[in-house]
């Protein structure tokens, strides 16, 4: 219920368009009721052979409703979509605004893509909230009120009968069906997801399936699941069929009961016989508003589940906040780390545990160490994706926390292992780094990153879409684009986070050359587990379990014969020198 109210509050700003669409929905059904009721009245009246003039009102009514229904239906569809699109826009902006401060600190698993696709599905479900959940019951309620009043005018018992059957079809049947199908439904969801997993396994694990001769077995497993799924679907179809049969039955029983109640009224003279056909047909056609209701419960549950998941994300408090007031101007680009300790959660071990080092402006510092030594944590702290608890990091004599997030990141260029390229043109992807950059500036950066010629060779040059049909970038090309971005951004501090990992040695060497160009004149921090190109570093820190275990220049460290030496040997053992 709380989720429901929050959801309503979220989309409430668009109540006007939703109300308009609801009223139009009501008028559509009402016109249908009016058409059948006045038609019946016209025929019943005509049977008494009155002068034609007396029937004029009824004839006009019939024609009016015959036309108005189509018009209302049209308007209703139009404005219902208008309302839906407004809700959609609202939900996306709301969600994005709430998510933005959380990434990536609070959503560690965010990179995996699973979370993102789940979020997309949930947002998609909520976008239909008005159309599938809110509108049908509201329309049905308005119709019920109108037709109830209409029938009550002729006899309260008729109106009560309508109310009874209306509620039975709108509420009792859906609830009953839900209770009946609950077990089967859950089993079906499980079977379906197991089946999907099998399908994904089959396609993605095809190499293993083929290499290990498992095709037959895989097919058998899928077949068994598919059969089970088919049985469950059949059972559920039985229940759904029962539901639609019951709805039809109740609608006709409503008609029958109203007939049964009205006949004595006619006999007793309390009701003019000429109205009998009108009342029966009017009541019957009002049930049109009930037909979409059985699905509402299902959509409601889905919407609430989706909303609950999204609220769970948006309710998370961001880990970093901007301090009030303007950011300081850094006096220099010296980076100073003193007594730095950080852990991701109070019950976790320290990820970095008492680090001290200085990176003077213009120098190059490398941080190396095995996986899990705390290297990535440092990157996260420098970029203020997280805030450190103990110790200090300062940039040009100012504490990192004193800078606003956006200002701080303006001073730092980052090239990481996973360069994200947006589904936009090459140009747009580059301009991200400097929106106002001119054409020549762009080309110059690309040239320096040695990617200009490749871009020129693309069918539409700089205006080729990344990921467009057939245009796939290799790892080396992606990294070059990232370097071009960094060149364009032209920040004073450069952060290289495993920038050449995963490239083959030839490409690695080439990309490394471009990176050296990029480092020129910049304060550079290199994070890597590959010990390549480190002889050019002014200092190397060897990190293990969050602590600095060795420090010095490449040659010194090799001579020391410690962890660095060991890693170096492991990496190069089989490579002849």
């Amino acid at each position, binding site marked *: 219920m709380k989720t429901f109210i929050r959801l309503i509050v979220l989309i409430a700003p668009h109540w006007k368009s939703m109300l308009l669409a609801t009223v139009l929905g009501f008028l559509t059904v009402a016109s249908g009721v009016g*058409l*059948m009721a*006045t038609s019946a009245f016209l*025929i*019943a009246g005509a*049977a008494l052979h009155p002068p034609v003039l007396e*029937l004029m009102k009824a004839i006009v009514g019939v024609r009016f409703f*015959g*036309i108005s229904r*189509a018009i209302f*239906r*049209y308007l209703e569809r139009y404005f219902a979509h208008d309302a839906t*699109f407004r809700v*959609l*826009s609202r939900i*996306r902006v709301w969600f*994005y605004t709430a998510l933005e401060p959380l990434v990536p600190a609070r959503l560690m698993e965010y*990179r995996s893509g699973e979370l*993102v*696709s789940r979020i997309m599905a949930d947002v998609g479900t909520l976008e239909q909230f008005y159309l599938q959940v809110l509108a049908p019951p509201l329309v049905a309620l308005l119709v019920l009120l109108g037709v109830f009043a209409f029938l009550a005018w002729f006899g309260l018992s008729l109106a009560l009968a309508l109310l009874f059957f209306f509620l039975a079809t709108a509420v009792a049947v859906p609830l009953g069906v839900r209770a009946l199908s609950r077990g089967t439904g859950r089993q079906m969801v499980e079977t379906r997801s197991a089946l*999907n997993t099998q399908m*994904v*396994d*089959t*396609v993605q694990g*095809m190499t293993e*399936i*083929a*290499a290990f001769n498992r095709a037959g077995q895989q097919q058998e497993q899928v077949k068994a699941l*598919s059969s089970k799924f*088919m049985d469950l679907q*059949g059972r559920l179809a039985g229940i759904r*069929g029962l539901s639609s*049969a019951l709805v*039809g039955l109740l609608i006709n029983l409503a008609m*029958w009961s109203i*007939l049964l109640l009205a006949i*004595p009224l006619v*006999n007793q003279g309390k009701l003019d*016989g000429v109205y*009998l056909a009108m009342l*029966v047909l009017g009541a019957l056609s009002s049930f049109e508003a009930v037909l979409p209701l059985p699905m509402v419960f299902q959509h409601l549950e889905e919407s609430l589940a989706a909303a609950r998941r999204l609220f769970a994300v948006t309710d998370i408090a961001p880990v970093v906040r901007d301090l009030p007031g303007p950011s300081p101007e850094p006096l220099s680009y010296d980076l100073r780390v003193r007594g730095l300790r950080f852990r991701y959660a109070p019950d976790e071990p320290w990820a970095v545990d008492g680090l001290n080092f200085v990176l003077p402006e213009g120098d190059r510092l490398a941080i190396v160490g095995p996986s899990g030594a705390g290297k990535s944590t440092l990157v996260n702290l420098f970029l203020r994706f997280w805030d450190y608890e103990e110790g200090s990091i300062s940039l040009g004599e100012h504490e990192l926390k004193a800078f606003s*997030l956006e200002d701080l*990141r303006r001073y730092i260029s980052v090239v990481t292992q996973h360069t994200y390229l*947006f*589904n*936009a043109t090459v140009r747009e992807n580059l301009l*991200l780094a400097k*929106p106002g950059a001119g054409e020549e500036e762009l080309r110059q950066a690309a040239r320096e990153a040695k990617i200009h010629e490749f871009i020129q060779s693309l069918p539409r040059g700089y205006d080729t879409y990344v990921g467009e049909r057939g245009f796939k970038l*290799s790892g080396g090309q992606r990294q070059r684009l990232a370097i071009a971005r960094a060149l364009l951004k032209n920040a004073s501090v450069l952060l290289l986070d495993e920038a050449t990992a995963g490239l*083959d*040695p*030839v490409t*690695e*060497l080439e990309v490394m050359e471009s990176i050296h160009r990029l480092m020129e004149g910049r304060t550079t921090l290199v994070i890597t587990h*590959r*010990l390549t190109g480190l002889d050019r570093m002014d200092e190397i820190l060897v990190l293990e379990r969050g602590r600095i275990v060795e420090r010095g220049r490449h040659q010194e460290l090799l001579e020391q014969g410690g962890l660095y030496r060991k890693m170096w040997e*492991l990496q190069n053992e*089989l*490579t002849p020198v």
Partner: protein
Amino acid sequence: MMDKRLMREAGAVRSFLALSVGLGLGTGLLAILQASYLARVVNRVSLEGQSLSGVWPWLYPLLGVIIFRAGLTWMGEVVAHRAAAQIKHALRQRLLAHLLALGPVYAGGERTGELVNALVEGIEALDAYFTRYLPQLALAALVPLAVLGFVFPLDTISGLILLFTAPLIPLFMFLIGRWAESLSQRQWETLSRMSAHFLDVLQGLTTLKIFGRSKSQAEVIGQISSRFRETTLGVLRVAFLSALVLEFLATISTALVAVTVGLRLVYAHIPFEQAFFLLLLAPEFYLPLRLLGSHFHAGLMGVSAAGRIFAILETPLPERKLQGECHLSHDPSFQIAFEDVHYAFEDGARPALQGISFELHSGERVALVGPSGAGKSTAAHLLLQFMAPDRGRITVNGIPLDRIPVEEWRRHIALVPQKPYFFYGTVAENIRLGRPGAALEEVAAAAEQAGAHQFILDLPQGYDTQVGEGGIRLSGGQAQRLAVARAFLKNAPLLILDEATAGLDPVNERLVLEALERLMQGRTALIIAHRLNTVHRADRIIVLERGRVAETGRHKELIEQQGVYHRLIAAFGGAG
């Protein structure tokens, strides 16, 4: 919109579909009967002044018809679903079998998502096509005809009104409907593009943050969705005209029947009971046509899903020139030869191998090296019979490879790929892929040899820990050692190591290399690598460049030649 291929599928469950249509028709006839009883009761009460007891003889049958009608509706739904379920089940099996036959080269890479989508969503999209659209297509013709059969004997004018408006509905539906559908289809594409942008922004949020562009994106998203709303509504304004026209035809004809019948009733040209009966029939007449309209979309979805499904099913399987099967002798030693092998992707557009020849003898370690894209993995895939050479041939002990049954051949090979895939299941089950039915001790022994036993025991549930979808995530080094364990368990004489240590950090790489070293003892191995520290000890190194063999020899010899290999080594060493 009768997809021929879907109709062929429907043939298998012809009787169910016919029954479903028959039940639908029965329901329609009962509706007519219901209308006639209702008309009779109302006539007797309101015009003839009969009391309740006087009309019971019609009220009871009316109740009976109502109940019977509900029963038929139920049965109709059940039967329709049965038909659809069988078609879906059969098609899913066929699609899967075809995919398995097409193999990993077809199913790999970019296509994965699309294939999973066709197998899962695609098949389910057929449900509405067979349960709703197809039966309704028949009923939209049959039920109105049945209604007309009752209307014409009673009143020709009403009959003519219905008869002339009826064809207009399907006509408009297909004329406007198609056009409107393509309009709104285009809009939905815009919507999905917009969603793609939203997804893109969410996925690249960290990057946006680094460039200080994340906050302003909220506004961009708002603007894009507003613009989308405006343009879409502009289009929908037109597209919804089809709804207007269809609704208008149905209501205005009902109104027309009511007015003409009413007017003739005034002059006593027609009795009331008949007039009322006609009025009741008019909506029943249009109902099936309108239902068809509302299932139109389901029909379209079904056809487009069918397009995707049959595109896969109609992909020809690689031809195998089976000029008589040959079997390998039980002799443990064998000799593999690549003879001038060519292979190209995309129907020859992208050559991968351009005539390579080499031999692999029992007990030998041969390394294939070369820069990315040189054709190393293609050679391995050909050897695994994932595909067949375009030209040239591969022989085993002199027998052409394509004459050895695929399954038999693959029993002799264990593969350790760069990115091993783990199926939904436990660690033990995943290792057991190497030899189904192996006892847990054997699994553990294999894991021990692969250097995986210890970390497996450290997992939350040891060998019973779930991996794969929804299970725990393994690190690269762990995954690789599990793949080695699979290979140990399989105990095949020929090993293919396809970039088995790529992307690992030095410590993990060391562990995996040690495991591989043990694995290669006493086995024949084809090692594929772009990182060169794995191939140093190979008996022979074959250097591929642009699909051709550039050099062959031992490490030392190649270094001395100062050729491609030397360049590669220089790059690797120089970087190090």
